[in-house]
């Protein structure tokens, strides 16, 4: 019995052992099967990402005029990522979305593979890919013969004016060629604060780009300036905002945004004050009224450095009313409240807060000089001119340029040449270079441009991709991207420090492109000896190095370094020490280039004699008033019925689309703005109440019609817009083939009326009336 049981147990153990072995084997089998399936599928699915040698190079982003320092990471020669350079004082390691998007600009599938030539004419025209030799021969030949007849009939249209060396180099080329027609061009979609420049010129007599020292300010009052979207130096304001809200000894900076729309900038502000369209200037003077009435202004600055504050009696005994009496009599809070729609208490509170938290800064609307003047008067009232936390005017950097003088004409206010070309029987412009500009797409007068381009016999574009304008040209000589070529640009940080940033090629050219400067150099050397002598360099990089020599000779500043190094340099300089020399010139060049640039971490506040250049030597307050008197207000005062149909059009410039001539990038179009969930299409923001009244729901397709044209848009009802306003974004609606840009959204420029400022002649963006109806 016992034995029997034993056997049984043993056999049982055996059996169970065998069973578990089978089970284990089964498991192994399952694993093998699983592995087999994986390996089989991986063959079809896996995207291999090759590894390789990693290198980091410092260079400078050229996508806007901030000129941020960037570090480019390459793996075996392919650019994998772009990061901010923490040693660069402009961005201190940060990078804006556009900066990272440089990757998609470099590797854009729609880049031209090389020089293109148009054959045939009219509708039967075709683009043909040619070699660089042929292209250069054709262009040089053409220009050579033109130069013997009339050199001034060559025109160079250079978009996105900046302080980079490419601008001065192109200018130099035009001077050597003998043509004064070098035009730095901007248009409806560009974002240059020219109205600010004009206002400053009228009040201070200085022609300089200001720096807003937001980071050190205690109160920033923004009058419809989308400072964190389309500001000229986006990165600087983003960085300064962070500084202004970090733990500073002076406390937290308050931020108030005045404007019709709760934009991304307004939503970062502590308070948004909606005003009626176009009345920001009135509100500014209302604030001035309260500041003067309550004696909150800076007595010293106003009494000593301003003129036109008090009434003035001239020799003949005629009294001219001053800023004070006009503001006191005409801009009382109750009147201002009627005009702007802002409550009286709100105006008073705003003025008190603003004036009592100095240093305070008023930043103005970017399109209308009229408003800008009123806003800038607030800066004078609070003495924020060239003070820490105020508005600064950094001097120019001394760069060695071998005797150039600037002849640039700025702005679209000088598009008289268009009408000249169109009206004369034969175009006075015989050849045209276009670079960084796409007026056919973005100009408010694109019809005129089309006609003018039609009449110019020889047009060369430097565009790297086929865009609306270059498709009308005769030849395209694709320029390299900023990641494939040399450049240098002089900028100032928001704290007023001067910076010289250097761009250098970080990857081999992805396509057969050529830096436009090298093309010009090439053309110049082929033209005639007297032109060629001005271009004795081998390539543009020599010109950049020459500029660095100027810095060496100036003997100030330092190569870029981490933040604490900047403080160190500052201390040394204050103590009277010279900056440690970088050895000889060659070593200086090398360290500067490796670091990504040079800077001078010193700013001299005060210096009013440098920044106020009026003949009286004083800050003129009167322009602020004078420009307001002939202002007819408001433009939407029609009968109530028409009110319901007509809206003032606000064109927003989202950060991701503002600086791109062709936003052919999925990253940008998928992140147009963070304050709305709309992407990949042109939307129209309408006040929720009004939308309800008109029967519009979210996502409805509507037609937006102005006297100029009509476009389609998708309705986005929102609480965050003034009922009299509607807003659409600029930057979409391209019609030229592009993997992502083509057919996405509508072009805001198609409906924007081309109304110019009577004072300055630049386009006013807020002057379009539209009506909206269902598509």
């Amino acid at each position: 019995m016992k034995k029997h049981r034993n056997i049984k147990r043993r056999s049982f153990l055996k059996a169970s052992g065998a069973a578990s072995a089978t089970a284990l084997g089964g498991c192994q089998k399952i694993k093998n099967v699983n592995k087999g399936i994986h390996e089989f599928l991986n063959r079809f699915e896996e995207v291999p990402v090759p590894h390789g040698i990693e290198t980091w190079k410092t260079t400078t982003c050229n996508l806007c005029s901030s000129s941020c320092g960037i570090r480019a990471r390459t793996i075996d020669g392919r650019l994998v990522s772009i990061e901010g350079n923490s040693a660069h004082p402009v961005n201190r390691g940060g990078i804006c979305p556009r900066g990272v998007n440089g990757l998609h600009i470099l590797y854009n599938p729609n880049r031209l593979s090389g020089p293109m030539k148009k054959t045939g004419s009219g509708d039967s025209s075709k683009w043909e890919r040619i070699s660089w030799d042929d292209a250069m021969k054709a262009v040089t030949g053409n220009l050579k013969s033109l130069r013997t007849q009339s050199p001034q009939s060559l025109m160079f249209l250079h978009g996105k004016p900046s302080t980079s060396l490419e601008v001065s180099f192109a200018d130099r080329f035009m001077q050597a060629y003998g043509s004064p027609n070098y035009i730095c061009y901007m248009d409806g979609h560009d974002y240059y604060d020219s109205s600010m420049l004009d206002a400053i010129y009228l009040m201070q007599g200085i022609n300089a780009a200001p720096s807003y020292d937001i980071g050190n300010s205690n109160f920033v009052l923004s009058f419809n300036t989308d400072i964190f979207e389309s500001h000229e130096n986006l990165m600087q304001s983003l960085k300064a905002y962070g500084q202004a809200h970090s733990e500073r000894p002076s406390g937290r900076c308050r931020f108030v945004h005045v404007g019709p729309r709760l934009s991304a900038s307004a939503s970062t502000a502590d308070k948004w004050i909606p005003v009626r369209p176009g009345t920001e200037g009135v509100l500014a003077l209302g604030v001035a009224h309260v500041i003067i009435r309550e004696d909150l202004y800076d007595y010293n600055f106003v009494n000593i450095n301003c003129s036109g504050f008090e009434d003035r009696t001239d020799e003949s005994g005629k009294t001219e009313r001053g800023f004070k009496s006009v503001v006191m009599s005409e801009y009382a809070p109750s009147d201002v409240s009627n005009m702007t729609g802002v409550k009286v208490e709100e105006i008073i509170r705003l003025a008190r807060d603003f004036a009592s938290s100095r240093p305070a800064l008023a930043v103005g609307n970017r399109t209308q000089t009229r408003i800008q003047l009123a806003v800038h008067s607030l800066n004078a009232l609070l003495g924020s001119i060239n003070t820490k936390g105020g508005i600064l005017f950094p001097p120019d950097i001394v760069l060695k340029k071998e005797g150039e003088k600037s002849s640039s004409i700025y702005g679209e206010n000088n598009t008289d040449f268009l009408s000249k070309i169109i009206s004369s029987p034969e175009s006075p412009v015989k050849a045209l270079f276009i670079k960084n500009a796409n007026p056919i797409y973005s100009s408010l007068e694109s019809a005129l441009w089309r006609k003018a381009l039609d009449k110019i016999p020889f047009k060369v574009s430097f565009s790297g991709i086929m865009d609306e304008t270059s498709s009308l040209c005769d030849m395209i000589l694709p320029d390299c991207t900023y990641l494939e070529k040399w450049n240098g640009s002089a900028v100032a940080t928001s704290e007023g420090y001067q910076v010289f940033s250097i761009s250098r090629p970080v990857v081999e050219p992805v396509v057969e492109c050529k830096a436009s400067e090298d093309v010009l150099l090439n053309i110049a050397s082929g033209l005639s000896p007297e032109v060629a002598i001005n271009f004795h360099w081998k390539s543009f990089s020599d010109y950049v190095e020459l500029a660095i020599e100027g810095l060496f000779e100036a003997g100030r500043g330092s190569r870029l370094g981490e933040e604490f190094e900047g403080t160190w340099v500052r201390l040394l300089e204050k103590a009277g020490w010279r900056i440690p020399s970088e050895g000889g010139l060659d070593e200086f060049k090398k360290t500067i280039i490796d670091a990504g640039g040079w800077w001078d971490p010193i700013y001299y506040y005060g210096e009013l004699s440098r920044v106020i250049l009026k003949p009286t030597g004083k800050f003129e307050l009167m322009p602020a008033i004078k420009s307001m008197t002939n202002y007819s207000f408001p433009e939407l005062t029609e009968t109530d019925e028409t009110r319901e149909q007509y809206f003032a059009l606000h064109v927003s410039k989202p950060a991701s689309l503002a600086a791109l001539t062709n936003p052919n990038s999925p990253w940008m179009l998928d992140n147009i703005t963070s304050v709305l969930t709309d992407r990949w299409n042109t939307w129209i923001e309408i006040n929720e109440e009004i939308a309800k009244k008109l029967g519009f729901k979210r996502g409805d397709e509507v037609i937006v019609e102005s006297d100029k044209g009509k476009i389609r848009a998708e309705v986005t009802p929102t609480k965050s817009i003034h009922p009299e306003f509607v807003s659409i974004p600029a930057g979409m609606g391209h019609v030229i083939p592009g993997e992502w840009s083509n057919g996405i959204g509508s072009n805001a420029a198609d409906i924007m009326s081309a109304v110019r400022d009577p004072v300055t002649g630049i386009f006013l963006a807020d002057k379009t009336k539209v009506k909206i109806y269902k598509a």
Partner: protein
Amino acid sequence: MPRWGMVIDLDKCTGCGACIIACNSENNIGLSDPQLFREGRSIRWMDILTIEEGEYPDVKKKIMPRPCFHCDKPPCTKVCPVRATYKGDGGLVGQIYPRCIGCRYCTTACPYTVRYFDWYVPYWPSEMMATLNPDVSVRPKGVVEKCSFCHHRWQKAKELARSENRDMREDDYVPACVESCPGKAMYFGDLDNPQHRVTVLSKSRRASRLLEDLGTEPKVYYLLKGE
């Protein structure tokens, strides 16, 4: 073992979106297009959330960057049937793409909806394949993916520190979003290390976490807007 965490100062955030693009670039996130957007299938490990509050004219828009919160008690890892998602070293919630079966249980279990699914094979034009980061694998279709706090950067930082024979420093390991932030609104570090900035900031009066009452113990702190 560190406990990696993030602090986002909403008082410094302008909603510029740099973090989103930097993340897209760093982590080989498939490109979006109008169709994907319409279908609600765009992938963004880092996103910026906006909400409109109040009535006109007293309206406020609140902007909030949202990565994965890498919860200390993650609801997502509990439900994964194959341990494709797990709470790993440093408290990071990881995702094993080759193991994920794509059941999307974790995506539904996550109260923060920060997990994304690859509905299609990710797409890059051949030219743009050059920008792919070799440190991060490209996800095939049909798996779940999510913010990893740039886990690969930690690996690299660790190796670098070891090769230089030193301990890791505070700023050795920083995810791409934090590094890119123009306003320096984001901080990253070890929440257990009293020397690290995040530890100090996470105890600030302004610090709070999203859906704190769920007990998920997220490791991303928000510093509320000042005033």
